[in-house]
């Protein structure tokens, strides 16, 4: 099977919120994770008090390495007095967050609209 060469995320803007949608259904490969991490870091570095919304609607699989990347981004966003929200996580993926107790670390919402409404 040919590897996808599409960008792993698509980024849009809604007022002052950067919305990042994962385009691949699997966030597994270290290379893929590193690329996503670099994109999210760039978005975090763009401005003071960044507001970042990550939409997981397309994600069916992710690895612990992806969780690690998200933790690093969460720390970067916090260092810049920003806000990070995760949205539209499928039940099987959400269970991974629960098992690792990362549902306590991240602000997770059932859909994009509720996540957007939660930004201060």
């Amino acid at each position, binding site marked *: 099977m040919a590897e996808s060469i599409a960008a792993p995320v698509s980024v849009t803007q809604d007022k002052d919120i950067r919305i990042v949608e994962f385009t691949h259904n699997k966030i597994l490969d270290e290379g893929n994770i590193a690329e996503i991490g670099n994109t999210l870091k760039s978005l975090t570095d763009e401005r003071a008090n960044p507001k970042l919304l990550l939409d997981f609607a397309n994600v069916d*699989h992710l690895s*612990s390495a992806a969780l*690690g*990347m998200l*933790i690093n981004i969460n720390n970067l966003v916090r260092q810049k007095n920003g806000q990070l929200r995760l949205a539209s996580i499928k039940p099987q993926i959400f*269970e991974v967050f629960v098992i*690792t*107790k*990362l549902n306590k670390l991240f602000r997770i919402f059932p859909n994009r609209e509720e996540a957007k409404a939660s930004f201060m």
Partner: protein
Amino acid sequence: MVGGGSKEQCNGCGGGGTGSPKVLQFEIASDANADMRKVKQQIMAEVKRCGFCEDDAFAIHLALEEAMINAAKHGNNFDPSKKIHIAAKISPSAAEFTIEDEGGGFSRSCVPDPRLEENLEKSSGRGLLLIESYMNRVEYTCGGRKLHMVKQRENGVH
């Protein structure tokens, strides 16, 4: 793996029937991401053919991913000269895996619990927790170089 020592015994599940378990064996280099993907694809195809439900397939996929990455990264330090040996025995009732690296081994008790508050914001250390949460039986032998894990066919996380 590919072009290396891939061996298969084609006993097959018979699409969920009562045939002998299918045994798949692979040997891949630690830096061979493409080979790792192919191994996972072959194994998951067999899991699907044996009729495991979506929740069980998800559990197997995740545990396999974590085990293979652990072997490559922590076991073999991504040393291309070191191999990962993978054996999968898939039947309609259970999926059983052995993943062995060629590294120095480790002690399970030395890996901290990533759920503790002091570890929650660390970016690594969750692989074993996920393997042990999603598989029914997990054993470490050969000084930690060999992982044996089993998923019984049923729903949910254990």
